[in-house]
């Protein structure tokens, strides 16, 4: 597991700095007195920073008064937490049963080819992270791909370029965070 933070400079993101630690302090202060706060704290920090750098985890452990091993144990246990910076957009391919029998493995192949990354990685330019999720609960529309909050239904491998093209500009996020089904 990559715990160092040096790779983030290459990703065009700021290294761990005082601001990040300040975020950690704020979140810890908000939840410190609640019972069993660790997961909630990690959630909120990840939402605000995009990932969980090692230095921040140390700060969380100190702030909550728990061993770093407990914090690290939780972070590495849950699939949602990331120790590495993510791309600006996260592409999630659903690999639930319904999507699988309707061919989501072919969509992953196509994405890996087009983006030149493997599942779990981020493109060189830091634009897309590709991941696999277990069922987004839209089984009636299988196979499903989500990009950030946009949901694409009944995706075919040939339809992938059209989806990726929507994220060409940087102001392209749809206003309500939703997208239309892409039929090809």
């Amino acid at each position: 597991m990559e715990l160092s933070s040096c790779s983030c400079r290459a990703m065009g993101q700021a290294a761990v700095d005082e601001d990040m630690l300040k975020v950690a302090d704020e979140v810890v202060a908000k939840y410190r007195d609640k019972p069993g706060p660790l997961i909630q704290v990690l959630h909120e920090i990840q939402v605000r920073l995009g990932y969980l750098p090692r230095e921040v985890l140390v700060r969380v452990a100190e702030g909550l008064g728990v061993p770093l091993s407990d914090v690290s144990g939780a972070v590495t246990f849950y699939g949602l937490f990331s120790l590495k910076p993510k791309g600006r957009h996260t592409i999630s391919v659903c690999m639930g049963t319904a999507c699988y029998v309707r061919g989501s493995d072919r969509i992953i192949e196509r994405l890996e080819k087009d983006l030149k990354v493997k599942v779990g990685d981020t493109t060189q330019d830091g634009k897309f992270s590709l991941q696999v999720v277990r069922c987004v609960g839209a089984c009636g529309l299988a196979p499903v791909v989500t990009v950030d909050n946009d949901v694409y239904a009944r995706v075919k491998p040939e339809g992938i370029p059209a989806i990726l093209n929507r994220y060409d500009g940087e102001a392209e996020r749809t206003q309500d965070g939703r997208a239309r089904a892409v039929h090809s």
Partner: protein
Amino acid sequence: MQQYRAHVLVCGGTGCVSSGCHAVKEALLEGLKTHDLADEVLVVKTGCMGPCDMGPLIVVYPEGVLYRQLTPESALRIVEEHLLKGRVVEDLVYRTENLKPVPVLEEISFFSRQTRIALRNTGLIDPESIEEYIARDGYLALARVLQQGDPEAVIAEVKKSGLRGRGGGGFPTGLKWEFTARAPGQPKYLVCNADEGDPGAFMDRSILEGDPHSVLEAMAIAGFAVGANQGYVYVRAEYPLAVQRLSVAIEQARRYGTLGSNIFGTGFDFDVEIRVGAGAFVCGEETALLASIEGKRGEPRPRPPFPATEGLWGKPTLINNVETFANIPPIILGGGESFASIGAEKSKGTKVFALAGKIRNTGLVEVPMGITLREIIYDIGGGIPDGKKFKAAQIGGPSGGCIPAPCLDVPVDYESMAELGTMMGSGGLVIMDEDTCMVDVAKFFIEFCKDESCGKCAPCRIGVKRMLETLERITTGEGREGDLELLEELGQQIKDSALCGLGQTAPNPVLSTIRYFREEYEAHVRDKCCPAKVCKALLEYRILADVCVGCGACKKACPVGAIMGERRQPHEINTAVCTRCGACVEACRFDAIVR
């Protein structure tokens, strides 16, 4: 109160949201304004109505006409024709297989065969309006229970109903309540398990998104019955819309005094907090879920002690699933006996199933227990599309198994499913046709369980991995004689020795497919052939010389240069080089490439 002559319900479930229901709703509102109908027609965004493949869909009342697969343009036509002139727009209504239009929702077999108890409000009311919930007798059951002030009577009623846990285990709900109520120790906690991780199941999501108050009301009732004042809803992080609607509902309930302190002036305090999961399937297991709420790694622990005696922070804790809770208010209002009159002998009431996969009508259906799979798949689901043949129904997700065609007439209840080597699970029902390879499906589920195994106990951590390796061997043509027996033996041992429900049920998909589709496994092992033509390593691509026109499209598409041939001459595939990626099949416009 403003009176409207017509109501337009716009389905706002996750499926319809991704199909574009927002734009349809906007177009409706715009059209109504243009035609000066905004004061006469009310547009309501509801939760999931069920038939996801028809989305975006709307229902126009009082007639109850369902329009499907709408666009903003077709929505405007509905305003101009139906709402302004009172004429049904025939080309937008549902059609049966032989294209007969069926405009009225209640006459569509997808709906007419259902009995909706848990989904009674889903798709009918605005989930973000507590008033609409109250108008449908919402919080009446809670009021009655608190007014009577007898926790034991509540438990007796739930026991009488015969309700069993809808999350998969099927444990009698009333007994669980009784155990928690009698357990010594204070304070007691209440937990709603909304960590719906089974791939292929989305009923809990739809209930939380479409009728969140029904869960809150049931939690308050359960809290009163067992003596708990604090409840938690543990929701998956993958369900952001459910989290949002539930948060809105909790706010409203606190404002209206149906949550909080001194509810209905009876002195009973109860509040609910949301805890969001972090992407671990095992957290659906109750002891792992409790560990996760406590902020730890979501690892299960041995039972007993059961959560009813030692749960959250070591205190007595009642854990029920979302769908189980959604059944509670109707049981209180209608009486346990009336609930028990629905369903099968040992499985009372209804069950919500999520229909998906190779089936014509996908979506959510709620049916009485004891109905046959055939009725669900053919009468409600409309059968298998594209003229294909039904092969198997996968029920219960990674914990369940596959049911073959000869068992289609078995009633769907807890006991029958267990006899078939599967389980009801949370109600995911994925239909597979002849193009699905059962060995590949078994491998898919075992891979899922391998990924999601928490690693605490050896049978699950190591045993499931070994099963996966054996299946990988079989699907890549390396299968050996004795592999099937090995899988059966190992599977049985894992079932007997794993720590929690995840491990104990992980072998089910493999064992049930070996049981019913042994020949298909044997074809992989002995003949090195995949009859469904799915397992890539066992396929061979060929170009039909008499169909190929020599356009060269496949040659261009092939990433490894395995296709040879002159222009306008039939091409050929060099199977020694071919990686079986299938790119040529997609590129060919003449269907000249077969496998």
